[in-house]
C-alpha cells in the first residue's frame, strides 16, 4: 500500500509538469519539504515532537551553498550526498544529549538550537551572507553543465527518485525491530527498557536518520531555488514541517509526502489567487484534518482503499 502510493505519486509528479511546466518547480520543493517532514514524522512515531527540525533543513541547504562556494564541489549527487551525511553527523552530535529529554523539553530544546542557528546565520554576515543568504549556482550533472531548463527537469526526476528511495528505506526501517521499538517508546518506554532495549539508543538512531532526511530535503530545496536564507531555520518552518507530517498522516511513510505536495500546491495556487489568506487556508486545513481526519490525508486514502477492496 505504502509503496504503491509513493510510486503513484512519483509518476504523477513526473508526468504533470510535461503539460504544466511550472509545476516542476513546485513538485521539487514538495519533495524537499516532504523528506524533512518524513524525518519529523519518524520522531512523532516515538512520541517526540521536534519543533526545531528546520535546523537540519537549513544545515543541509547551507552545506550545499558552502560546498559549492568554498570546496568547489559542483556535482549534484556529490552535493546531495555531502549535505545528507554532514547533516546526519550534526544530528548525531546534537542527538547525543537530546535523547535524554522527552515531551515538552525535547520540543523546547530543539526549538532553542534551531533559533540559535537562525540568529547565527543572520548575523555572521561575512561568513553566511547574513540575512541576504548565499546564492547557489546550477550544479553539474555527471560532469555536464546543463541549461537551467534541462537541469530543472533532471532535478525534479532526481528528487522523485530520492523520494521513492527514502520512502522505501524508511518504510523498511519502521517495520524493522529498531523502528517498531520507536513506536514502543511512545506507548511505554519503561517496558521497553525492561526488555533490554536501550530507549536512548533507539531514539538516537531515529534522530540521526531524521536529521539526515531533513538535510537532504534542505539540499534539494537549496538547489531548486538557487538561494539559501536564514529563514530556512526559522521556527515557523519547523512548525510547517510538523504540520505537513500530521496533515499527511504519520501512519505511513507516504503521508509526509502527500502532506508536502498538498502544502506546496495550496501555497502556489493561493498566493496567486488570494495572496493574503494562504496562511489561513493552510491553518484551516490543518484544523479540519486534526478534528475530522486524525490519521491525515494518507489515512483517508487508506480508509477509502480498504472500503474499495472490502465493500460491505
Amino acid at each position, binding site marked *: 500500500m505504502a509503496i504503491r502510493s509513493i510510486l503513484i505519486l512519483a509518476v504523477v509528479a513526473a508526468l504533470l509538469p510535461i503539460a504544466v511546466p511550472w509545476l516542476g518547480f513546485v513538485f521539487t520543493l514538495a519533495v524537499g519539504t516532504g523528506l524533512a517532514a518524513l524525518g519529523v514524522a519518524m520522531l512523532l512515531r516515538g512520541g517526540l515532537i521536534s519543533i526545531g527540525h528546520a535546523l537540519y533543513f537549513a544545515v543541509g541547504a547551507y552545506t550545499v551553498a558552502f560546498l559549492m562556494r568554498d570546496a568547489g564541489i559542483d556535482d549534484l549527487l556529490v552535493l546531495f550526498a555531502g549535505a545528507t551525511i554532514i547533516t546526519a553527523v550534526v544530528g548525531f552530535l546534537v542527538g547525543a544529549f537530546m535523547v535524554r529529554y522527552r515531551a515538552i523539553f525535547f520540543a523546547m530544546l530543539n526549538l532553542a538550537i534551531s533559533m540559535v542557528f537562525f540568529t547565527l546565520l543572520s548575523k555572521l554576515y561575512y561568513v553566511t551572507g*547574513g*540575512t541576504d*543568504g548565499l*546564492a547557489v549556482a*546550477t550544479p553539474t550533472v555527471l560532469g555536464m553543465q546543463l541549461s*537551467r531548463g534541462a537541469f530543472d527537469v533532471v532535478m525534479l526526476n532526481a528528487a522523485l527518485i530520492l523520494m521513492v528511495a527514502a520512502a522505501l528505506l524508511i518504510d523498511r526501517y519502521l517495520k524493522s525491530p529498531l523502528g517498531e521499538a520507536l513506536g514502543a517508546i511512545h506507548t511505554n518506554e519503561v517496558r521497553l527498557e525492561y526488555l533490554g532495549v536501550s530507549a536512548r539508543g533507539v531514539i538516537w538512531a531515529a534522530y540521526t536518520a531524521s536529521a539526515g532526511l531533513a538535510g537532504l530535503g534542505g539540499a534539494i530545496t537549496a538547489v531548486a531555488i*538557487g538561494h539559501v*536564507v536564514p529563514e530556512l531555520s526559522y521556527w515557523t518552518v519547523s512548525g510547517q514541517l510538523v504540520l505537513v507530517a500530521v496533515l499527511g498522516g504519520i501512519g505511513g511513510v507516504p503521508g509526509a509526502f502527500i502532506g508536502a505536495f498538498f502544502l506546496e500546491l495550496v501555497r502556489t495556487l493561493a498566493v496567486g489567487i488570494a495572496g493574503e489568506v494562504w496562511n489561513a487556508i493552510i491553518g484551516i486545513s490543518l484544523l479540519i484534518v486534526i478534528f475530522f481526519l486524525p490519521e491525515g490525508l494518507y489515512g483517508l486514502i487508506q480508509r477509502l482503499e480498504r472500503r474499495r477492496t472490502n465493500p460491505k
Partner: protein
Amino acid sequence: MTRLKIAATALLLAAGFGSAAAQTNKPAEIGFGIFTFTSGPAAAYGMPGRNAAELVIKQINASGGIGGVPVKPIYVDEGQGSAGVIAEFRRLASDSTNEVMIAALSSANCLALAPVAEQLQMPTFMWNCDTHQLFLKDRYKYVYRTNSSTVPEFIADVLYLLSVKPDFKKVAIIDPDYAFGRDAGVIFKETLKALKPDAEIVVELYPKLGSPSYNTEISRLVSAEPEVIFSNFWGADLENFVRQAAPRELFTRSTVILALGESALQHVGTVLPDGVIVGVIGDGYWLTPDARRKPQTKAFVESYRQSFNEYPVFPSFKMANTLYAVKAVYEKAIATNKGRWPTRDDLVAAAKDLKVDTLTGTLVLREDNDGLVDQIVGVTKKDPAYPFPVMGEMVRYPATMVTPPVGADPIAWIKDLKPAIMASVPKPGSYK
C-alpha cells in the same frame, strides 16, 4: 504545369513573408513585471515606487503606449521573500507577453534575480537595487541598473558632511544588517578614512532589517556621545528610528546623516530639527531646481499628489525615471528596426550607451550596464509652505565626481581620494 508551380511558389513565398511579417508585427500588449515591496516595513519605501509606476504607465498608455502598444504592468510583492520572488520571476518570464522586468527594490532580491534574469535572457532593469555588488564581479548582458548604486551617494554624503562640519572626531554608524547596510558601513568608513583620517568610529550597530524598535540601540548611540552619526535606514525602519530617536535628543546632540532621509520627511520630518543632513539616492527630489523647471516633472508631481495625497519621494522618481528610460530604449530600438517590433537582443543593443533626460536630470547607461546619475544632498529646513521640512542648502554632485569608473573596485578607488578634493567640491546651497 510550370505556371502552376510558379503560382504555388509565389503563394508560398507570400505566405512566408506574411507570417514573418505577422511575427514581427506589434504584440497586442507588452507585460512589464514590476517588483517592489507592497507589504511589511519596506512598503513605506516600496509603495511610492508602485504608485509612481501606476501613474506613469497610465500616462504612457493614455498617449498610445510604447510604439503604439499598451503596457500591462504586473506587480510582484517582494514582501513574500526571496524564494517567492524568484519563483514569480521565473513564472512571469515563461509567459512570452512579458518582455521586460522592472526589478527589484531590495538589494538581496536583485542580487538573487540578476543571474536568473541572465539565464532566462530576460531584459531586466533594476529600478532601485542600490548595491554596488551587482556589477562588481559579474558582467551581464540583459541586466541594467537605471539608477546609481549607493557608492556615489555615500561619497556625496561624506563630502557634504565635511563641507558643513569639517571638525569632528567621534563617529557612529547604524545601518540595517544586510548587504545594503553592511556595504554602506564599509563605503562610509573608507571614504571618511581617505578624506578625514583622524576621525574615529566609536560604535557600529547593525540591527536586523525590519526591527520594530531601536530604543536600546539609541541608548547605545547616545552613551557613546558621537559628534556624527551616519545611517542608511530606509522604509519603516527609518521612520521608526526617527520617531524613537527624536525624543531622546539624538538629532540635536549629534550631526546626523540620514542617507535616504528624504523618503521619510513627509511622514516623520516634523520631529526633526533643522540641520539634519538628508540625501536621496540619485537626483530624484521634487523640489530641486531642475524638477521645478521641467514642465513634465511639475505635471508628474501634481498628478502624484492628486492621486496619492502626498508628494512623490525619491523612490517614486527612481521608478518613474526607470520606466521612461525603458520607453526610450524601446523607441530607439523601434526606430533602428524601422518599425519592426524589437526582439530582446534589439532592446539590448538599444540600451547600449543610452543617454536619457529624466524627470530630474540625466541618466547615462555605462558599458557595464550601470547607471550614472548626479547625487543630491541637503539638510532639513522648515518651510512655511509645507507642513514638513524640505531639503535646503542642496548640492548637486556631478556623477563623474563621485562615481568610480567602469571596472574600478569602488573601495580601491575611494582609498585613492585625497582631502584636497574638498577645494573643488560644490558648496552647500550651490544648487539653485
